[in-house]
């Protein structure tokens, strides 16, 4: 999945647990049905946390997760779709 398919991007770089999940929930609530939210985090724990959040949240579907390196820093990208 690439950034082009995401409808909105949430940048939580530089924020640690529990903020990525809490801000994801806030941004997800504002999405329209069918939208895909891209979450960019530097917290390695977000890989498991945001996946778990999506699994237990009605209407949230984890589309993809990937690890990348930006400017020498590890970033974790998550793509969550809001159900139609």
């Amino acid at each position, binding site marked *: 999945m690439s950034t082009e398919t995401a409808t909105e991007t949430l940048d939580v770089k530089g924020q640690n647990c*529990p*903020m990525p999940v*809490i801000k994801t929930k806030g941004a997800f609530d504002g999405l329209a049905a069918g939208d895909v939210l891209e979450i960019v985090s530097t917290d390695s724990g977000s890989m498991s946390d945001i996946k778990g*959040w999506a699994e237990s949240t009605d209407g949230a579907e984890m589309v993809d997760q990937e690890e990348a390196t930006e400017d020498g820093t590890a970033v974790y990208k998550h793509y969550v779709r809001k159900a139609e």
Partner: protein
Amino acid sequence: MSADTPPSSGENSPSDDVADLRAQIEALETEVSDLRSEVDEGNADKMVIIATKGTLDMAYPPLILASTAAAFGYDVTVFHTFWGLEILHEENSKDLGLSSVGNPNMPVPNAIAALPGMDRMTARMMRNRIEDNDVASVEELIETSLASGVDLQACQMTIDLLGYDEDDFYDGVTTGVGAASAFQDMADADIQLLV
């Protein structure tokens, strides 16, 4: 017995039996749908945390769990009592203490940790670490929790006991609550924790 034999007295005809069964099924269906809507009404998942500690390290677990549970759609109440009140005290929450004394995980021997000024230094070192590791401050977590709909409660008995005023706490903190309301919340909750 042929199909057109009239039923002997005292027995229901087959059509009466069917009507009886239909009525019973309808009654059961009504009951099931009533029960189902009752269950749905009380369906919100709920968590209650009792926060009793007010040191810098112990302020974090209740606030992190509370705000996270709210993100999972839980109704969350945190009942702060005794030193847990410090977390909700607007002024004190920014300067929560921490001591190395009696904590074998800290790299300072008790004899040195007990010297004057050491607790303040320990707390300052911890606060710096928190900041360096991109961990939110206690104040940020309180604001986040309140914004997520977490009910942060300050036990009235300990407010009086410690000589605090209701205005000392963050806006949005619930005061005027006691053990009975905490207990009722716990009885209704799916998760209850004492921190």
